[in-house]
């Protein structure tokens, strides 16, 4: 098991190197001068910051290769991502402050997706080609097409018009009022989990149909095992492995969706931090959020890989 974990972590190294290069290159090598953009957008001249100071602050006064190694070296050795250009606070501190909100929203959305997607997927497979199956499949495609920012907008506008109710627009900390905090997170989590539940439902259905044709299911039914037990104990457990993989693959989608929903529901998470940084052209923050989000997704996928053994005894860590 330990050897497997070590091998799996080592296999991540090239991916992480490419991910860091993508972050670095995206912000620095795209046509157009970042400094000019910052100067024009923020009227930095009025702020008495010279172009040279900005270049030095961003580390742009050094050769490109040196910039990369300096940036990634500071991150790997000290966990430093530099300082925000406007707040002068360490970027890592800002990120660590916001990360739990996005993480919490993502976890709630994941729970929603699994609670909705798996039962409907199982039902849809068991009742293949019935009216219920068609309704479930149509719901799934519709859920994929519904833009979360539109649903979020409708939730903000129509209850306010009809009943004078609107969601909280200031974060209530969990420590202050746990129930209201969870209640505040529920609507964005439901919206964020909507599209994911559709993907989970479609994959669960496909995998259940595949598994239910296997000999061991036929054997279980032939020996008189109740269909309910056969489905839950034999079929579902085997059908769930690709669904777990899907959780890893969908992690970037969840984070991306969280950016928009945090903006609509005024949740101070990573998405809002990124959008604030974009509006201020605060590149150390943009780069930091970009990198941490990528790393988080890579490590979620690692955890997903390592969890296979818990679900499927056939998976051996050799």
């Amino acid at each position, binding site marked *: 098991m330990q050897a497997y974990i070590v091998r799996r972590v080592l296999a991540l190294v*090239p991916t992480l190197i490419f991910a860091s290069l993508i972050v670095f290159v995206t912000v620095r090598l*795209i*046509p*157009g001068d970042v400094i000019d953009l910052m100067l024009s957008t923020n009227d930095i001249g009025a702020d008495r910051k010279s172009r040279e100071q900005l270049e030095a602050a961003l580390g742009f006064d050094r050769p490109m290769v040196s910039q990369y190694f300096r940036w990634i070296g500071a991150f790997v050795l000290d966990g430093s991502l530099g300082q925000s250009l406007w707040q002068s606070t360490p970027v890592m501190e800002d990120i660590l402050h916001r990360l739990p909100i996005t993480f919490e929203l993502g976890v709630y959305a994941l729970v929603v997706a699994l609670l909705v997607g798996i039962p409907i997927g199982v039902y849809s497979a068991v009742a293949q080609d019935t009216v219920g199956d068609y309704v479930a499949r149509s719901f799934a495609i519709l859920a994929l097409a519904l833009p979360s920012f539109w649903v979020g907008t409708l939730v903000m506008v129509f209850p306010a018009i009809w009943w004078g109710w609107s969601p909280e627009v200031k974060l209530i900390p969990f420590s202050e009022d746990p129930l209201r905090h969870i209640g505040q997170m529920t609507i964005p989590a439901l919206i964020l989990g909507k599209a994911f539940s559709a993907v989970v439902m479609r994959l669960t259905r496909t995998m259940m149909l595949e598994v239910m044709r296997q000999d061991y299911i036929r054997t279980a039914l032939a020996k008189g095992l109740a269909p309910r037990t056969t489905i839950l104990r034999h079929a579902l457990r085997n059908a769930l492995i690709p669904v777990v993989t899907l959780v890893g693959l969908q992690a970037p989608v969840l984070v991306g969706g969280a*950016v928009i929903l945090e903006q609509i529901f005024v949740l101070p998470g990573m998405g809002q931090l990124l959008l604030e940084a*974009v509006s201020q052209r605060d590149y150390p923050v943009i780069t930091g959020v970009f990198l941490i*989000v990528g790393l988080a997704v890579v490590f979620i996928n690692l955890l997903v890989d390592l969890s296979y053994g818990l679900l499927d005894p056939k998976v051996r860590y050799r």
Partner: protein
Amino acid sequence: MTSLAHTAPAAAPVRSGLWNFLVRLFRDKPLGAFGFVVCVVFLFCGLFADLLAPYGFNQISPINRLKPPGEKYWFGTDNLGRDMFSRILYGAQLSVIIGLSAAALATVVSVVIGVVSGYLGGKFDMVVQRFVDGWMAFPDLVILIVVVSVVGPGMGPVIVILGLLYGIGGSRIVRGAVLSVRENAYVHAAQSTGASLPRILWKHILPNVMAPVIVLFTTRVGAVILAESGLAFLGLGVPPPAPTWGGMLSGSGRAFMYQGPWLALAPGLCITIVVYAINVFGDALRDLLDPRMRGSR
């Protein structure tokens, strides 16, 4: 005479192929056929928005501001008295341009990376795939926001960024198809006759991976429209006064939704219907083009 003899039979199979496809689509995949019809209507509205729209997309009429949907203004008017129906039609035009251009670019990028990486294999493939792994670790919207923040908003940048974004991710699908095709006997035969690499890729590999490529293109159109709407909603898409569907749900339109709730309905409904139609058509296309996928699943 000879040329006539050559051209006449060549045209017939193409026509019958398309006709057969449409017959199968409407007979076997009614939901997919519905999606196809909606896609055609969407394309028509987008192409002929200038002729169909009763008003200009930025034609202001202060006296008619925030009028609810009615006989004169089918979808109502916004806070500046602009006709929402006309803006929706022009929005369809922008969505058609951005959706088709970015999806086409994405497909070309996917094909180039997927075909070359999948066919060549070895260390080249390994390096390219680690790059794709790294790229896919980032949420689409986060990449879009970061890149647009550097290059600035606008239709051109949005098309290029969406094209590259979905192109790199989609290359996995093309590569997967190439990996199975490259082992076929006709590819080995071409290799043994000394055919050049470009010829093998162009004449033998590419035509045999066209089915997944067509499906990829279709699904990418929907994904691009959804992503562009999200970007416009965040104020990072094509800048106003261009009437993008996502943009209509944000900015000044959003501030007046409480007085004119219809402002929140039409753009979102259009995005949902079009993306839904493209997805169900894409699903049907996949089933019809791939014999292994035919059936109810």
